[in-house]
């Protein structure tokens, strides 16, 4: 019977090992919080596999890229990546296809007599440089959260240390600047304190106008798959339409658009009324704040009595009346936040950020967590998600904004300017103290004739598609057409709605056709190497910026020299020899990404955002900053900021320390911000709300995903989604053409009822991915007065059935 015993022991050991491995996926505190990434290896079928973060959203999944004969042939979810643990979404599995659309841009082109004609790179860079040289102040640089960190840093340095100009903006202004102003006004420093580990520990997950089932599918699976494993997690979906996320939610709270502020205030009201707020946490770690002007980033001091009085009117009944959410559901939220035995994580993305009250609602959600003490334990966190792969890394951390400097520093702060000038080795006073134009204003100025105050004559667009994504396109983008002295330069990989109006089109290298570093939503910095050659003459965006700077250097622009009279982008190889990286033949003589990243890294220490050295990133599947060097020379990442058990910058014994506090006393701020109606609400003439957004298949403006057959096949065109009752009243059925009209324009779309989602009565939804149906020609350009982020989720629209005989105008 010994054999039997042996078998039995083996069988038990097999099952125990599997369990141990599963549990081992959660890395215990105290251990180096990352594991070394597997290096590239070749499988027997001749495929070379290497790591890269996915090109699409801000989740930051790692993929393994399979390359054979110089082309990407396969993709795997990377099992060694903590973010996605081997899983991807349909976009991630097909990310390789984005490189191979047949209409890739492969040569620089100049518009002559209305037609784009091929020119050389030398000509292209020279034309652009001469436009900049003529009037540097009127030159704008417009990038995005799809810039890699080195690309964004090169652009940032070129503008602020080189031209001495702050006219640089990322399209991230359109997607997460309200989250930034929210974090800065509450904690004094940007970006989430928690991380995705919160999703594994939370008992309750609250979605604030968020649909992660389609927008952050891998994170959504991370939450709902816990149920498959037998864990209990309560999901509360607060939204304006029933979505895929609602299908798995325990509670669905459907609120009237804009009233999320009333609901947040209603929760705070109940915490005070029921005396279930956390006296200890607030007493130790918080101050109160308000903003009587409604326009101030840092506001004015407030006190508990004032706070209590301001919230007095937000009774469950009053909130129910404003929001349409039944009073008992408001009470449910109040009771949940009042319980300390539960861990609550709030998630949000564009619903709260693309909001004319974006900063206010961000502050309120942080405030509800702080007031209730649902802050500072894994699973207790207010966490914003981002939509672009490096919105955090490049836009927020590198600070490619008209008012920011790298590492969370500000152009308006003299000390910050001096510090950056020193790090950049440029003369004092080089950095302009006046913030530049924010995105909407930048494009308005570009579309305004020069003699009427349009002070921007040239915009260089990299890695984004403003011709499709700016709000109220006719005013903010299309206005450029016909203005002879305005010049639009676009670097992109495919023809887009933006290249339609471009005067100069530059072909760019995409994703694994170049080296790169991204920063995801949980402060994780992720590096990858170039794995295939770009098509034709396509080149990396960082090279374009360096080449432009060098051409200006040759033309004699004084800003392109540092204090020692050297070119601002001077690189050296390991032997100390200078490498002319501006000459493309030598661009890859060294790893310019490594040089740029390690140069940028020095800026991140001031605000304790220590990013890891490039060589550490090479070894890891991303590291969450602050990444701090240990006595033994190793580097440790930080999962939870401001919390003593995880963050090395917290004073020992403090427990929690907000060490960049606005009030300089290590406390976070609990804000009061009132509910106010939207800037354009439905009325008799325009009786519906119009909300825009994304679908799972397509990412951003669809430039890449619409060229992947599997994704386009799944979702070929835009539609208007409406409530069945509204459709019935308007006499519209599935597939009928509807005419949508706002005060800004008209768009005809097919109707889809009870398809992907069902909006509340009185609201219609249109996805923005379809370049043939530009919904942003009719959206509103109004923005949050503090973050300057436009509201794409709310404007008034009227809808009618399109008569068969009426052709589209």
């Amino acid at each position, binding site marked *: 019977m010994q054999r039997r015993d042996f078998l039995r022991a083996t069988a038990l050991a097999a099952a125990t090992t599997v369990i141990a491995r599963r549990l081992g996926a959660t890395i215990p505190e105290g251990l180096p919080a990352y594991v070394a990434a597997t290096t590239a290896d070749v499988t027997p079928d001749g495929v070379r596999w290497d790591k890269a973060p996915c090109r699409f959203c801000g989740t930051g999944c790692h993929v393994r890229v399979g390359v054979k004969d110089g082309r990407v042939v396969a993709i795997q979810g990377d099992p060694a990546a903590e973010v996605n643990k081997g899983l991807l979404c349909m976009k991630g599995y097909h990310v390789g296809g984005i490189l*191979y659309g047949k209409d890739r841009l492969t040569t620089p082109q100049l518009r002559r007599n209305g037609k784009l004609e091929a020119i050389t790179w030398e000509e292209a860079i020279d034309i652009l440089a001469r436009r900049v040289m003529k009037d540097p102040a009127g030159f704008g640089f417009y990038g995005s959260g799809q810039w890699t960190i080195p690309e964004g840093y090169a652009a940032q340095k070129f503008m602020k240390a080189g031209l001495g100009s702050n006219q640089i903006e990322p399209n991230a202004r359109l997607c997460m600047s309200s989250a930034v102003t929210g974090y800065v006004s509450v904690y004094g420093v940007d970006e989430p304190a928690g991380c995705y580990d919160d999703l594994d520990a939370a008992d309750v997950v609250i979605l604030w106008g968020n649909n992660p089932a389609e927008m952050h599918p891998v994170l959504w699976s991370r939450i709902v798959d816990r149920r498959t494993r037998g864990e209990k997690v309560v999901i509360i979906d607060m939204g304006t339409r029933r979505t895929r996320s609602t299908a798995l939610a325990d509670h669905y709270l459907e609120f009237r658009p804009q009233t999320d502020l009333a609901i947040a205030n209603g929760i705070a009201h109940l915490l005070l009324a029921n005396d279930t707020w956390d006296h200890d946490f607030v007493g130790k770690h918080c101050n109160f704040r308000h903003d009587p002007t409604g326009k101030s980033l840092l506001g004015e001091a407030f006190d508990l009595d004032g706070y209590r009085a301001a919230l007095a009117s937000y009774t469950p009944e009053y909130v129910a009346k404003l929001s349409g959410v039944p009073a008992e559901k408001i009470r449910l939220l109040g009771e949940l936040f009042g319980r300390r035995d539960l861990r609550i994580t709030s998630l949000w993305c564009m619903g709260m950020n693309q909001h004319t009250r974006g900063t206010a609602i961000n502050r309120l959600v942080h405030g509800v967590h702080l007031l209730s003490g649902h802050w500072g334990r894994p699973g207790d966190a207010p966490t914003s998600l981002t939509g672009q792969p490096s919105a955090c890394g490049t836009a927020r951390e590198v600070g490619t904004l008209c008012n920011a400097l790298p590492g969370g520093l500000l152009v308006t702060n003299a000390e910050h300017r001096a510090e950056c000038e020193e790090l950049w080795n440029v003369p004092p006073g080089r950095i302009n103290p006046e913030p530049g134009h924010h995105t909407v204003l930048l494009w308005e100025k570009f579309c305004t004739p020069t003699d009427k105050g349009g002070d921007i004559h040239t915009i260089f667009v990299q890695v984004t598609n403003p011709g499709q994504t700016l709000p109220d396109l006719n005013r903010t983008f299309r206005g450029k057409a016909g203005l002879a002295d305005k010049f639009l330069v676009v670097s992109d990989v495919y023809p887009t709605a933006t290249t339609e109006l471009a005067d100069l089109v530059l072909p760019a290298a995409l994703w694994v056709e170049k080296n790169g570093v991204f920063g995801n939503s949980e402060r994780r910095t992720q590096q990858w190497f170039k794995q295939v050659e770009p098509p034709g003459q396509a080149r990396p965006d960082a090279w374009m910026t360096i080449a432009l700077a060098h051409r200006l250097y040759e033309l004699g622009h004084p800003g392109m020299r540092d204090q020692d009279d050297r070119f601002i982008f001077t690189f050296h190889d390991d032997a100390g020899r200078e490498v002319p990286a501006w000459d493309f033949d030598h661009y890859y003589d060294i790893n310019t990404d490594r040089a740029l990243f390690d140069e940028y890294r020095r800026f991140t220490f001031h605000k304790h955002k220590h990013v890891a050295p490039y060589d550490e990133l090479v070894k890891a599947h991303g590291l969450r900053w602050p990444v701090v060097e240990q006595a033994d020379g190793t580097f440790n990442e930080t999962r939870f900021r401001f919390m003593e058990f995880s963050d090395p910058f917290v004073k020992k014994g403090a427990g929690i320390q907000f060490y960049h506090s606005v009030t300089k006393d290590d406390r976070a701020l609990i804000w009061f911000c009132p509910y106010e109606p939207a800037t354009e609400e439905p009325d008799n003439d325009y009786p519906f709300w119009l909300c825009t957004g994304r679908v799972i298949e397509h990412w951003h403006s669809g430039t890449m995903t619409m060229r992947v057959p599997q994704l386009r096949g*799944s979702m070929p065109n835009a539609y208007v989604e409406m409530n069945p009752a509204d459709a019935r009243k308007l006499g519209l059925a599935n597939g009928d053409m509807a005419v949508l009209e706002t005060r800004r324009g008209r768009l005809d779309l097919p109707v889809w009822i009870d398809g992907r989602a069902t909006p509340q009565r009185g609201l219609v939804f249109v996805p923005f991915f379809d370049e043939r149906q530009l919904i942003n020609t009719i959206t509103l350009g109004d923005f949050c007065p503090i973050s300057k982020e436009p509201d794409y989720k709310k404007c008034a629209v009227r809808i009618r059935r399109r008569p068969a005989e009426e052709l589209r105008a």
Partner: protein
Amino acid sequence: MKASVSKFAVVVALATFTTALSGYFMGLVQADRAAEQRLRPAEESPVADVSTAITAPRYADLANREHQPNHGWSNSLTSLSPAVDFTADTPPLARGAIEALLIKRASRRAYNGAPPTVPHPIDQRGSQSCLACHGQPTRIGDVDVPRMSHALYSQCIQCHAPKNGPGSALASPPAEAAHPVLANSFSGLQPTGGTRAYLGAPPVMPHTTAMRQNCLACHGPGGSSVIKTTHPQRQNCLQCHATDALRETLPPTP
């Protein structure tokens, strides 16, 4: 007298019943018109000659009635094959079947290892209905329904995209015709064969086991792979077929 009263009662009852019954089926047939042509209350109905009343159709005839929406529909309940027999050895596929299966398989994925696309319209809102067919090997009519090759995840539609869009509910607008599908030259990795130590040795797996833990989903009866097990009765595939350490991307050991 007593007899005639009861006879009369039977006739009235029968007439009422018949009217009600035929009315019910009329209602089924013309649900929309039912509201306009409301039936008169039974007590107002004249006592009719039963022989002229519309007779209710038999259930068995329903499908073949010409004015019915399901006219011409044939169910194949009787032709449903029994569940796959996992106890018997099965012969390898014929050459023609192999080619057909290869083409079908390639048409449903971007590369070997990509999540297959869905060849039919789906519930756009959730994944609950997927498991009704894909939870176990199923054959409906002459269609083999593959089951999941991996452990249960809650969000099937996170990875599996319907190949032909939202289906008839949302027809492409005319703009689609003017701007055809953009060509893409991505050429995905194709499957390769595994190695054997010697003739007759069990082949080594030529792919990773990630997302393919359930071997029979593809290699069992009705599966999408051309390599069909000849011995589906054996459940522990990894006992004989080794994984290829050179392909596996296991998390590094701590």
